[in-house]
């Protein structure tokens, strides 16, 4: 094994071991499990949901809030926390470069978030055959999309943590991002649209508008989940402020035909970019920082 891969692995294992003892993360995971479990159960018990796939689309709703929450809470201190306490000096005292440390931490924290996702969806998936009599293959695709959301949010949080020098700034970045992703995004977009067009966006919009929505990783996840489920998810955060457009397929929201950049793949690409770009920026900044 190359020294770099070895070092990344050491940091990732250390971080996973360290983070899994965090009570806060366990609490978030428990809440997430409770939500997905209850929603799947309720979807069946209320008798209005006939299909297991629809039940899954309900379970994806809480994932859209809990996955970023767990990733941000679990990730924003990853680098800057060690930088402030000085334990980073122990770690970098080993044959571990700054790049190794950053990547190892991103992987370690991603693994923790992946456990959260797998446990949460595991419960929902285990309940599905009992309640609906079938276990749809879509469950696998949705789990994969949710894992990708976990990677995106962890990449952002660990990137934020590596790019700044104080805990306060890292916290401000992830809280700011959470508020932007879950709440502000649609208003900013609608506001921008209004300034350009003198009218609020309707049910159908130009392609750039849909792309701008999709650049938010939570919208990208909603689009990716919709693609794997063949059914839009029950979201409380990626509501489109456009008269019920939330539940429409992309093609029916567009003025004109679907351009290549709005094909389903771009939703997955956006999530991958959120996983990688903040880390790349952090690698640059962290590589230059004085850690004395």
């Amino acid at each position, binding site marked *: 094994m190359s020294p770099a891969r070895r070092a990344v692995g*050491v940091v990732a294992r250390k971080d996973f071991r360290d983070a899994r003892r965090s009570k806060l993360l366990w609490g978030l995971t428990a809440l997430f499990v409770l939500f997905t479990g209850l929603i799947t159960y309720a979807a069946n018990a209320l008798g209005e949901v006939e299909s297991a796939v629809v039940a899954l689309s309900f379970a994806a709703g809480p994932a859209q809030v809990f996955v970023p929450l767990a990733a941000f809470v679990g990730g924003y201190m990853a680098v800057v926390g060690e930088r402030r306490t000085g334990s980073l000096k122990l770690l*970098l005292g*080993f*044959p571990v470069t700054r790049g190794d440390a950053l990547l190892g931490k991103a992987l370690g924290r991603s693994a923790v978030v992946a456990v959260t996702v797998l446990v949460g969806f595991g419960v929902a998936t285990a309940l599905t055959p009992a309640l609906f009599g079938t276990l749809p293959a879509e469950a696998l695709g949705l789990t994969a999309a949710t894992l990708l959301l976990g990677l995106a949010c962890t990449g952002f949080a660990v990137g934020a943590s590596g790019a700044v020098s104080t805990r306060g700034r890292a916290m401000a970045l992830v809280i700011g991002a959470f508020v932007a992703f879950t709440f502000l995004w649609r208003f900013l977009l609608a506001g921008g649209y209004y300034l350009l067009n003198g009218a609020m966006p309707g049910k159908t919009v130009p392609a750039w508008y849909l792309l701008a929505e999709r650049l938010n990783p939570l919208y990208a996840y909603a689009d990716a989940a919709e693609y794997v489920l063949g059914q839009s998810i029950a979201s409380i955060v990626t509501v489109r402020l456009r008269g019920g457009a939330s539940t429409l397929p992309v093609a029916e929201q567009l003025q004109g035909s679907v351009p290549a950049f709005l094909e389903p793949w771009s939703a997955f690409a956006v999530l991958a970019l959120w996983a990688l770009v903040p880390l790349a920026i952090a690698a640059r900044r962290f590589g230059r920082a004085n850690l004395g």
Partner: protein
Amino acid sequence: MVALTISGLRKEYSDVTALRGLDLDIEAGEVFGFLGPNGAGKSTAIDCVLDYVHPTAGSVEVLGFDSRRETRALHERVGVLPDGYELYDRLTGREHVELALDAKDAAGDPMAVLKRVGIADAADRPAAEYSKGMSQRLALGMALVGDPELLILDEPTTGLDPTGVRDLRELVRSEAESGTTVVFSSHQLPQVEAVCDRVGILRDGELVAVDTVDALRAANGGGATVACTVPNPEAAMASGLKEVPGVESARIGEGQVVASCTEPAAKARVVGHLLDAGVAVTDLTVEEATLEDLFAQYAGDGEKSEVTEGDRAAAAPEVKA
């Protein structure tokens, strides 16, 4: 063979210059102590060696590896006890050593390491429960993992009780005997004197002296002071104490005359002179010049050349050990 070369090392922060062009060679197998008051630049120099901090100018080569370009290769051969670090609260002592073994790709028994630094009984407790002294011992154990060629210990006595300091000294000695180069920094001078082959005294970002402790002592009048309690110090002083061979200077203390000697035999001559002059010497104390005295001389406010024996005696008590 040179283990560590520092060339023209400069570090400027936006508001302060921490290092002003450091040049230093440390030989393989040597025990070298960086001395100086807090803020003199000791930790910055070590941080540059370990690539925690990037120098503004100059370079560092450790065992032939450039600190900026070959950081990983450098750290594969160096054991580090950093300054101002914290352990991982949630990991146990044993897990910390396992991390070090893992990271350095070294084989070994974590318990053997913990035994060596005297905290084997706390192996399975999380580090959050460790005292400062135990933490320091654990970090030292982690630095020793993988039998490094060079040990870098930044303020290693921090948090250690006298037993811990003694253990540390023994450990440094045994590492040095096995051929390891040891570089450490301290502002606690008496603890350094006993183990260092050479010391470098840093002041205000500059190395003001590099030599063996003995040589520094000799170069600075480095004998001892002898203080004689006498009934009438003024009269004793007037007997010509300053003219005794080997006495560099003499002054009047509280009910005492104090003579600074440049050679060991002068101490006895001082007492003999007083007795010959009919002065009743009722008590006698001898103090060897410690590194602390030398340190006060170099690290004090005055320039080296302006410091006289009297100034040194006056300045020494103000230096915080």
